[in-house]
């Protein structure tokens, strides 16, 4: 039995690599018979679990954190101190709830900041209308 699990694990990693989001790929609205159990598991896994998926090397660069990144970190910590979330809920939302496209496509602290706004809406501390009006107000300061 374990060896058949291991076979499934490696087939799983192959599928996950193939479904990394790419532009201009026609994968919308598949019919049910196009999704077998292995593909269902690949689509519904936690997309931060990328270990073992083949990929090309990326360049490592030394980069100091920017002011907005520090501010984002502090905001998320304060949300924890005020009981809005714990660290594990924050990680789930930043790394998994954002979905695979945003997990791979947004900068690290971009996901933190997006998630800080999202939980305040999800748990009804603010309304989405309030958030959108505030974003519009702030954006106008720079126009």
């Amino acid at each position, binding site marked *: 039995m374990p060896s058949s699990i291991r076979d*499934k694990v490696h087939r799983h990693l192959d599928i996950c690599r193939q479904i990394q989001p790419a532009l201009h790929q026609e994968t919308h609205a598949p019919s049910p018979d196009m999704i077998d159990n292995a593909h269902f598991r690949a689509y519904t*896994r*936690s997309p931060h679990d990328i270990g073992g998926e083949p990929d090309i090397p990326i360049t490592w660069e030394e980069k100091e954190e920017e002011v907005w990144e520090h501010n984002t970190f502090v905001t998320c910590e304060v949300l924890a101190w*005020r*009981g809005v979330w*714990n660290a594990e809920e924050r*990680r789930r939302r930043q790394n*998994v709830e954002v979905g695979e496209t945003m997990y791979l496509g947004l900068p690290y602290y971009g996901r933190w900041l997006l998630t800080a706004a999202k939980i305040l809406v999800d748990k009804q501390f603010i309304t989405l209308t309030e958030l959108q009006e505030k974003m519009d107000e702030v954006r106008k300061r720079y126009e």
Partner: protein
Amino acid sequence: MSKPHYDRNHHVEKATDIGDPQCFKGEAGKPRFKVGDRVRVRNLPDIFYTRTQGYVRGAEAVVAELVYESPPAEDESWDNTENVEWFYSLVFKMADLWPDYPDYFPNDTVETEIPEHYLEAA
């Protein structure tokens, strides 16, 4: 319209000045495994959230250390902190994880932490 009530402060009150996972110390009970035991990782569904890597499922490992007690990530990430369990640091042989791992590095290992409910005796 009714709004859900979130028990906002229970975790921060429990963890302040102690830390997480230190604040769960003593809540997991007797550990099922000890250092040196051989275990196998269960292939549980990974729907919605997990921190147990896909690449270790079904593989065998040796317990290197009992590291801390905590609710598993799958529970704590929805603020369910009642079911605390032991976390084990496990050592896997790389050759057991990757079919094409080169023969000339037979002693390479990877060590990672897995909660108890994912483990069965090997």
